[in-house]
């Protein structure tokens, strides 16, 4: 499955649209990441990773995430210690950014819930607050370790 996504996203990567796409995301992402230490290619992969996370395509997100990590590792000076951007990036991936929790809704339908989608907004609230706590704490750690 991951190979399939790798194929699909390789097409997207080579088009000109990726630049526009990545630009849309970068405004927001540069608030979280350190701009100087991030190559354009890494930014492309991070944007694709975030987009696939939001859409809930787990396998594609993992793949783009790995490629983003590889790009960031190239910029990293100490190879066995992750850079600040890398820790932040991994943290974002451990928080679920998924906009529509597909599998959860499907499961609720399966167990004949009265309102399967009632959980969507609460999930947004919860995810968002968890993300804020996560990013704040990783930023604190990053500062502490320099």
């Amino acid at each position, binding site marked *: 499955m*991951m*190979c*399939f996504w*790798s*194929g*699909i996203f*390789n*097409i*997207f*990567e*080579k*088009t*000109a649209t990726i630049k526009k796409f990545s630009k849309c995301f970068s405004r927001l992402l540069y608030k979280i990441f350190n701009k100087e230490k991030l190559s354009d290619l890494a930014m492309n992969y991070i944007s694709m990773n975030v987009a696939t996370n939001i*859409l809930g*395509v787990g396998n594609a997100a*993992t793949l783009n*995430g*790995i*490629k983003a*990590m*590889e790009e960031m*590792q190239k910029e990293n000076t100490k*190879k*066995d*210690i*992750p850079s600040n951007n*890398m*820790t932040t990036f*991994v*943290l974002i*991936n*451990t928080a*679920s950014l998924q906009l*529509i929790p*597909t599998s*959860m*809704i*499907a*499961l*609720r339908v399966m*167990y004949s*819930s*009265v*309102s399967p989608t*009632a*959980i969507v907004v*609460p*999930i947004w*609230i*919860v*995810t968002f*607050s*968890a993300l804020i*706590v*996560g990013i704040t*704490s*990783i930023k604190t*750690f*990053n500062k502490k*370790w320099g």
Partner: protein
Amino acid sequence: MLNYVVICIVPLMILVILIIGIKEKRDVFKLFIDGVLEGLNVVYKIFPYILAITIAIGLLKDTGAMNILLYPLKPFLVFLGIPENVIPLCIMRPLSGGASMSVVMDIFKESGPDSISGKMASVIMGATETTLYTITILFGAVGIKKMRGVLFAGLLADITAIIMSIILVNVGII
């Protein structure tokens, strides 16, 4: 209605990518094949890490060692006001996606998806990610062994998610 939207997202995304590729006159099929090969390389590289963590967690779970190790957490979770049958989910969620999914299914079967535990389980399951697995794969792929607080921050985010969902359910938003 929303169900249809949900089902359509992934195929639509693939279609959009293909259309963009064709519109820009790229050799879509060749790019796809190259990408698949590249993906195979990535899978090859992270496979040992996936295997290691899957087996390690499987062993911990099936031998019951996990229950013993995580037993001290239980009073804390009870103190937070979590229903008894949601507690295993809170403990399992960062470790294993499959195992926590089966816990959710048990809860749904036992008390239904619209009960308090059902709602709480849905929100916790939907709002968090398999923290440990994600960290292992992403750091494993580039061969980094020091984590620098990522695990701690990730778990802190998970705890926040659990607390927030308890608050939301108790306040009556869901």
